[in-house]
């Protein structure tokens, strides 16, 4: 649609009445864009406070990571006073560091099991099975799952410390019945369970919304044609919500990848069995004080984040082309 005269529907307020008020610039060009009297200069003033905060506390740290990662900066000692520029030495060192690969592997397991499979799968299963259910069952399940999501992460971590406690934890008692004692063998399972519990709600809600947009008649037709549940899902439902599946998977991957809260549950332990990347950065940088080295790890994380986010934005753009 062409918008020759903006707000033609509004009351007859045209340029003349406020021509004198507006500061500078050509009133004619402004009439098109600036009906509310916010000059460009003032608009910049409006945006400035937010941009300042974002710039100083979000953009600048990100850029500073670049620099720190290229120095041998340490929290104390000689390299604190006069750090040397070491270029990509840190990155090379990280790439040769077995502990880094260990944490990378744990991160991939953690993200894959808890987000991609766990939250995604359980969230979809809940949304799918609840879509035709109404009344108390639906309300109960939804409320429980949402509560898990809304609680502060410190509380959730503590609840799971209680649940998984070696002597007396209720869930631990079930998981560690003889012959099923995998929680001790795989401590990573604890933070996987924890993350599924606290994060499934988002997937459930997203898929709930997505599924309500799938025309029921399509599903009905498939069922009448004799398709099984699995076939209906694969051939009718999934193609319909493919965009949502991708979006959700990417978002929860990004969040889980950057999640520091497992630290609350296990502090990376026992030993280094749950030392995911976020915890490794904390340990090398803020605990051991090797700031330059951990800056290089942050840099790699940042890079991975950028890749994930770019894929995500591309998808968003494709889905809503202007």
């Amino acid at each position: 649609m062409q918008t020759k005269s903006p707000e033609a529907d509004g009351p007859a307020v045209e340029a003349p009445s406020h021509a004198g008020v507006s500061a500078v610039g050509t009133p004619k060009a402004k009439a098109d864009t600036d009906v509310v009297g916010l000059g460009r200069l003032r608009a910049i003033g409006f945006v400035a406070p937010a941009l300042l905060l974002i710039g100083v506390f979000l953009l600048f740290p990100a850029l500073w990571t670049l620099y720190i990662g290229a120095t041998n900066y340490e929290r104390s000692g000689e390299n604190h006073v006069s750090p040397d520029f070491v270029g990509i030495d840190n990155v090379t060192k990280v790439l040769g560091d077995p502990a880094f690969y260990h944490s990378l592997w744990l991160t991939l397991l953690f993200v894959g099991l808890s987000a991609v499979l766990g939250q995604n799968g359980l969230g979809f299963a809940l949304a799918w099975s609840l879509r035709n259910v109404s009344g108390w069952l639906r309300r109960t399940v939804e409320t429980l799952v949402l509560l898990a999501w809304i609680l502060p992460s410190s509380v959730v971590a503590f609840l799971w410390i209680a649940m998984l406690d070696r002597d007396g934890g209720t869930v631990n008692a079930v998981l560690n019945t003889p012959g099923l004692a995998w929680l001790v063998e795989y401590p990573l399972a604890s933070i996987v369970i924890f993350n599924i519990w606290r994060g499934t709600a988002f997937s459930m809600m997203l898929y709930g919304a997505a599924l309500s947009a799938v025309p029921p008649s399509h599903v009905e037709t498939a069922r009448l044609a004799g398709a099984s549940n699995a076939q209906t899902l694969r051939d009718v439902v999934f193609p319909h919500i493919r965009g949502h599946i991708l979006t959700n998977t990417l978002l929860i991957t990004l969040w889980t990848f950057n999640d520091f809260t497992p630290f609350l549950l296990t502090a990376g332990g026992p030993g280094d069995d749950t030392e995911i990347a976020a915890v490794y950065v904390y340990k090398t940088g803020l605990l051991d004080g090797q700031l330059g080295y951990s800056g290089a790890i942050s840099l790699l994380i940042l890079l991975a984040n950028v890749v994930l986010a770019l894929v995500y934005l591309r998808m968003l753009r494709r889905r809503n082309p202007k």
Partner: protein
Amino acid sequence: MTTKPAAGHDEARQVARKVAARIGFYVASCLIAVFFALPLLWLISAPFDSSPGFAVGFPEFTLSNFATLANNRYAMSSLVNSILLAAGTTVFVVVGAALASYALSRVRIPGRDALLYILLLLSSVVTGTAAMVPLYLLISEIGAGVHPSLGIDSRFAVMLVMAGGLLPAAIFMLKDFIDTIPKSYEESARVFGASPLRTLKDVVAPLIAPGLATITVWSVVNVWGNFLVPFILLRDPEKQPGAVLMQTMYTEAGQPNLALLGAFSLVYSLPVVVLYLFVARRYGFRFHGGIKS
């Protein structure tokens, strides 16, 4: 339908399968419900138990755990800290986002869309994990170079850091709301000589009240749950919020004080649960994007 030729035993088999599927569905639902319910049951029972353990069980009712909590100096001051941090950060977020999104919605600044996308990208990419080292250094340097009241152990600095992280998404959400408001309302205000700031405050703000409420709640919930930023920037236990104090409570003492921790967990959770109920009832629960990050 009459066109389907179905033999008797086929039908019986189908019915049996349906029944089995139904039973399976309920069993699975119940298991999942139990999985989600168990920790919550502990959360509401342990605080009232006279001798709380880790196992979920029916409590021997008492309120003494809350008395223990009320007498704990750090616990009470940490709640005050949490409130301060949430309130301060939210003011920065709401005011900053309202101003910015209003201007971005109404004035065609060159490169506006690109700017918004970059902001969105930034907020999802630069998280505490990737930026915790530079953030820690930045705040230490500001404290050493500018003024100690802005450095490590400054609640004000923590507010600014958290506001910086929340603002991009807040601007994004709020701009959606403002875009739906017809400009004609503001034109009338302008005819009467109202300044843009005044128009925003008196005309636009009431119209986007649901949007402002959404980002307020969203911001409070985020700050309330944020552990990493106060954890790395606040060393003084007198200044730490509940999220950090809880972690101290269950790691520093050899044997965690379950009476205290249980009661604190419940008290610390109540505000966000109440907020959630308020939002769910008032606006429906439709948060887009990452309420938790």
